[in-house]
């Protein structure tokens, strides 16, 4: 039963991938969806057994690495963290599979798409169920690979290729951190199983500095995977893939792997205050950065992508404040409402003939009211509107951040991001659904609600994003002590969210009118518009991160690679002391030597006599 949750997605991936042509597009869709649904049912059963009946299960499958220093098993570990993650992964994945049947219809490569999705689900399950770091690393790399394949699904587009390579390479930077952390752990603890490491940590006080190094390296891995500040640039670009992929991989599951890694390594992080503070600060900065950037994006999917980045920042931030279960709780809620948002966005894009730019939409509320409702539910949940899923986790995160007065900085960034989150959510809704339409007439006339296989996942996810927070809080937050702070502070995030939402309405209702009405002075308006233009450009280009990284890192490394390693070392030093130089010297030498054989008899005679004389004198010397 427990192994079934792994095997069924693998089986569906293999069948759909290898025999996709036999079973056809419809067969592949139905087969993979039903397989993932089975896996989801199994994971609910696992959830029931391990959490509600509180019986943690360990399964050792077989020996893998077996040397004197290191013995690693293929082992599965089902504790509360794993089974919670399993619920998220399999549920969202099953819904996305069903959604893809409708969304991808007409595409000639549906079996391949379904196979990739199932393979991704399998590898993600491997990631969360493993009981040691090495097996976790299989899943970690595997989901990166699947992300590459899926972003690059429409492989004839150059932008998709570029985005996929970017995602792969930036993730690889983080993976190096994880590998180094594993080596350091092996060096320090002599084992890679979580249980062994935790027991060693609880028994003996380990070397503080090496624990800090391990934590920072692990965090580097998480930064890459969870798109935290610095290595976040791949996430918005990854929106080149199909929308279900963005929903499954870049919102609900894969990007949470970094947070999962931090939660899993929680006992290690507890041993290093420095690492915790760095985690908090980077998480808070990510939340703030992504929120400011999300405000001015015009691409429907990129707004949601930056919001994902921002929410991941919240999760990482609260991990840094040692509240891992709250982080997990937010992860679960976020998975539901962000998948809902993405899938609804996909539905919108589907309705308006694959147009992603929000400036060319508008007025869709009349033609696709159901999708509008879904996005509204998702957005309200994201904003932390009371009684929806996001409220339970987001407010708690902010309260707990406020409680830690030594790093109050994180709280203010978080609160301000909450305001911006509300702003861009409402802006998205306003531009897409409420404002007068900017789209072409023939497109607008064709707008229609999508098919049942798109609607049903949306409805289920909407239920999820309404009720998961309420249902999950007793289960997941039973060990969290709510901080004692005044009621005013508790209401602040909500008030700021409402303020942000209100601001969005005001700004987008009146932006055109004010420009004409405020006829104060041409110069002042010119100045304000200029300033606005600069700020807008700065935020719209995501704080110029791409530019900075390309200009200062990538460019120099390219140049270094071309000038130093290629021209100087490969074509220069190595060739001179290597093949070309040696052959040149030898040829010259042999030419000189063969010149002695001039064909002239008297020269031969001279040489013979000289050397005979030398030989004789040498012999006589002996």
């Amino acid at each position, binding site marked *: 039963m427990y192994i079934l949750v792994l095997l069924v997605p693998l089986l569906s991936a293999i069948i759909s991938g290898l025999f996709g042509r036999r079973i056809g597009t419809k067969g592949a869709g139905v087969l993979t969806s039903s397989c993932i649904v089975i896996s989801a049912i199994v994971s609910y059963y696992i959830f029931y057994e391990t959490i509600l009946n509180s019986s943690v299960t360990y399964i050792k499958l077989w020996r893998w690495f077996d040397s004197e220093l290191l013995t690693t098993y293929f082992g599965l570990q089902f504790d509360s963290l794993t089974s919670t993650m399993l619920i998220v992964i399999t549920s969202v994945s099953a819904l996305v599979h069903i959604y893809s049947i409708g969304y991808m219809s007409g595409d000639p490569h549906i079996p391949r798409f379904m196979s990739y999705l199932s393979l991704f689900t399998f590898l993600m399950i491997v990631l969360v169920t493993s009981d040691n770091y090495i097996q976790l690393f299989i899943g970690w790399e595997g989901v990166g690979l699947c992300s590459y394949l899926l972003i690059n699904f429409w492989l004839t587009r150059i932008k998709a290729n570029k985005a996929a390579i970017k995602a792969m390479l930036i993730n690889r930077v983080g993976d190096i951190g994880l590998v180094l952390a594993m080596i350091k752990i092996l060096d320090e603890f002599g084992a890679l199983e979580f249980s062994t490491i935790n027991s060693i940590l609880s028994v003996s006080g380990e070397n503080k500095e090496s624990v800090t190094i391990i934590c920072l390296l692990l965090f580097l891995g998480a930064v890459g995977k969870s798109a935290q500040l610095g290595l976040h640039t791949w996430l918005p670009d990854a929106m080149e893939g199909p929308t279900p992929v963005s929903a499954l991989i870049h919102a609900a599951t894969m990007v949470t792997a970094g947070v999962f890694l931090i939660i899993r390594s929680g006992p290690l992080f507890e041993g290093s205050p420095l690492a915790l503070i760095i985690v908090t600060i980077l998480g808070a900065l990510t939340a703030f950065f992504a929120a400011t950037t999300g405000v001015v994006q015009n691409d429907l999917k990129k707004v949601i992508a930056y919001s994902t980045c921002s929410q991941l920042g919240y999760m990482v931030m609260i991990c840094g404040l040692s509240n891992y279960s709250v982080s997990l709780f937010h992860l679960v809620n976020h998975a539901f409402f962000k998948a809902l948002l993405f899938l609804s966005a996909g539905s919108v894009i589907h309705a308006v003939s694959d147009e992603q730019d929000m400036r060319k939409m508008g007025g869709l509320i009349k033609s696709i009211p159901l999708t509008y409702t879904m996005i509204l539910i998702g957005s309200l949940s994201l904003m932390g509107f009371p009684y929806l899923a996001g409220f339970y986790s987001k407010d708690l995160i902010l309260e707990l951040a406020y409680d830690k007065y030594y790093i109050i900085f994180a709280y203010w960034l978080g609160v301000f991001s909450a305001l911006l989150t509300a702003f861009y959510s409402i802006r998205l809704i306003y531009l897409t659904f409420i404002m007068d339409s900017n789209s072409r007439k023939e497109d607008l006339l064709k707008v229609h609600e999508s098919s049942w296989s798109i609607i049903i996942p949306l409805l289920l996810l909407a239920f999820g994003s309404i009720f998961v927070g309420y249902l999950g809080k007793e289960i997941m937050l039973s060990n969290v002590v709510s901080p004692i702070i005044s009621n005013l502070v508790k209401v602040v995030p909500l008030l700021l969210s409402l303020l942000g939402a209100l601001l969005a309405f005001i700004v987008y209702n009146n932006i055109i009118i004010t420009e004409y009405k405020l006829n104060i002075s041409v110069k002042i308006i010119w100045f304000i518009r200029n300033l606005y233009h600069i700020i807008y450009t700065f935020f719209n280009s995501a704080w110029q991160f791409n530019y900075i990284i390309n200009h200062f890192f990538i460019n120099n490394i390219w140049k270094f690679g071309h000038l130093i390693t290629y021209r100087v070392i490969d074509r220069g030093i190595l060739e001179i002391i290597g093949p070309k130089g040696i052959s040149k010297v030898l040829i010259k030498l042999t030419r000189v030597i063969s010149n002695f054989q001039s*064909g002239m008899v*008297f020269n031969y005679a001279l040489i013979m006599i000289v050397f005979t004389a030398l030989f004789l004198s040498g012999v006589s010397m002996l």
Partner: protein
Amino acid sequence: MYYEYLTIGIILFILGVLGIVLNRSNLIIMLMSIELMLLAISVLFLINSVAINNLIGQIFTIMILTIAAAESAIGLAILVAYYRVRGTIAVRSLNLLRG
């Protein structure tokens, strides 16, 4: 007293060597130089055999004379054949084989 004879022998030998090395024009001079060297060696053998009272030197000399005769015969034969082919006997033109 033998010392001066030895010096003469050696000088003769060196003259022969120089005759081979420095001669660039005529193959006959080369053959003659070879004869000269062989004779110088023979003289040295003879002087030594007298000096150390040993017959082997003189036996050797007779052998060398024999060989020198054979050698000059063959050498002249080659020279004649060479002249027939090339029409010249300059050593300088004897350079068809070179490295």
